[in-house]
């Protein structure tokens, strides 16, 4: 059985946890309320979290609301994922300076600090495992991802607050934190108490907790605590009404590449890239060569790109090979749900629902897949 304990004062426990992680040199990152959404930024203490706030999500809609308690983790995923830190939006791959008789090259400019992520949902950990297959375990590992990933510390949270856009249950990626975490928290909030059940998932997780335990009040976890956790995730699971069957989606899409639904979705799709840039598993990037006005300095910059930009599918002399929205949307969905399996052995979707909520046109991939599956049967 996993080693577990209960921190009997939740906010104080999180404060000490963040302090212990900071002492170990981590930049502690977690959800913060900014500009009407839970974004991922550096945390100073429990008070940095969206205390007493929750969110409401639907297709093309995201709103935050006050709760009538002091819950620390009572919201679903926001628009950003740890991808922002492990594989940042922009990085300079190398730079070159003109010197006498040639160039002097320099490698990646700044090495980011090790990150500790607090409040990570199961779908998020599943997404990181997917990105590992792409950016770490494949034939061409991304060195800065590998380094950031190896250093990263994860404090997971068993999800008690799925949004209406969530469907991790059907994808088999949540709502319980089962792998990839150093610590897993369950927030136990009742009328009389506000506690955190903490389960230890790694040796370094145990070391951090030993330090936390020496400064805050705690008690051993009971069967009752573990039962409460199971109930929380079980309730979350049944609250998720959206569904996607990963293997059904895989087979249906790839068998229906000329389905009229692709034309239909193309009338609604904005090709704006939002779905791909909020997706925690998307990894596409572009490289730009930048030179200084005097021609003495050059840089190669890598930045996030999307299969929805024309530049991404532009071939030299041929223009974009996916020149219309229909082909770009089909590329995104069939790659995410079908051909990702061929490439990486898993689905590229973890059911976090971000692409549904943050699509300005409200396109819902579960609905698109269902429509193609349904119309196929007729």
């Amino acid at each position: 059985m996993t080693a577990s304990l209960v921190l009997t004062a939740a906010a104080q426990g999180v404060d000490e946890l963040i302090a212990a992680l900071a002492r170990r040199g981590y930049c502690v990152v977690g959800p913060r309320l900014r500009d009407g959404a839970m974004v991922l930024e550096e945390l100073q203490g429990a008070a940095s979290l969206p205390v007493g706030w929750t969110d409401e999500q639907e297709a093309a809609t995201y709103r935050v609301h006050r709760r009538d308690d002091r819950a620390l983790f009572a919201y679903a995923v926001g628009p950003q994922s740890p991808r922002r830190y492990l594989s940042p939006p922009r990085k300079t791959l190398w730079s070159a300076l003109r010197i006498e008789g040639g160039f002097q090259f320099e490698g990646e400019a700044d090495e980011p600090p090790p990150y500790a992520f607090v409040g990570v949902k199961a779908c998020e950990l599943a997404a990181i495992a997917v990105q590992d297959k792409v950016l770490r375990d494949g034939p061409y590992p991304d060195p800065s991802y590998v380094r950031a990933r190896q250093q990263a510390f994860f404090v997971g949270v068993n999800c008690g607050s799925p949004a209406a856009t969530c469907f991790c249950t059907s994808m088999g990626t949540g709502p319980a934190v089962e792998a990839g975490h150093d610590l897993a928290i369950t927030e136990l909030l009742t009328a009389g108490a506000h506690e955190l059940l903490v389960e230890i998932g790694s040796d370094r997780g145990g070391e951090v907790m030993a330090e936390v335990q020496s400064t805050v009040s705690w008690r051993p976890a009971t069967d009752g605590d573990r039962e409460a956790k199971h109930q929380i995730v079980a309730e979350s699971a049944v609250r998720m009404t959206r569904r996607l069957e990963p293997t059904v989606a895989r087979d249906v899409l790839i068998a229906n590449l000329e389905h009229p639904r692709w034309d239909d979705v193309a009338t609604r799709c904005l090709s704006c890239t939002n779905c791909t840039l909020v997706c925690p598993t998307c990894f596409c990037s572009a490289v730009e060569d930048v030179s200084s006005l005097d021609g003495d300095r050059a840089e190669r910059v890598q930045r996030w790109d999307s299969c929805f930009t024309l530049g991404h599918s532009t071939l030299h002399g041929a223009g974009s090979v996916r020149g219309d929205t229909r082909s770009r949307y089909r590329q995104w969905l069939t790659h995410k749900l079908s051909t990702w399996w061929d490439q990486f052995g898993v689905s590229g979707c973890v059911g976090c629902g971000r692409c549904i909520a943050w699509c300005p046109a409200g396109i819902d991939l579960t609905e698109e897949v269902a429509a193609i599956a349904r119309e196929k049967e007729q």
Partner: protein
Amino acid sequence: MVSTTSRPKIAVWKFASCDGCQLSLLDCEDELLAVADRVQIAYFLEATRATIDGPYDLSIVEGSITTEHDAERIKTIRALSRHLITIGACATAGGVQALRNYSDIDDYLGIVYATPAYISTLATSTPISAHVQVDFELRGCPIDKHQLLEVLTAFLGQRRPNIAGHSVCVECKLRGNVCVLVAGGTPCLGPITHAGCGALCPTYARGCYGCFGPAEDPNPASLSAQLDRLGVDRVDLIRMLRTFNTGAEPFRAESQRLMTEASSP
């Protein structure tokens, strides 16, 4: 300093416009000396009265074509220029003055001028590309000075400028902005607007005004439908599309479609 003769000769030309875009070049305060070191500024009346005759290696053109005289002048400039790039919404889309394209020009003349007969003007405001071959169009109202420097640097380095045609949404996501449309219900043209400003307005929690014109392959009708669901009035939606880039075809066509829809029973 590179010798005068080996430096490319650059000319900056003004047509119907507010001067704001060529001012962006003077705005490059920190980089201006470096620019002046690499090029020979042969014609730039906003900066200096001293001019050098053509031909020119690069002509930078601001403004739209609104008179017969200018329609001829741009042809002469093109003939004198090895490369010609246009900068700003006026030069690339006709500018806000292209609002005249929806009306009878004589109505405007009668309202604005005491003696309309003295005025010689065309009925339309059109982009430079409607008159001559343009080698590169730099968008924006006004243009972004960093993008202008990038275009000049690329020209000097004989490489392609890194000017992306994707939507403003990409810039918001790169910056870590929260989407004002989804999280705030704020009307925003970002999903159909060309990047380049660095998502300036959404960074300050405002919706995008579309200053850089239509993005590559935009879908304005889908955005209209979404803004309609958010409760944006049809007239306001038409006004959103009819600003500095009203003459850009995707914005023009969508506003026209909305007008037609509004007037049909």
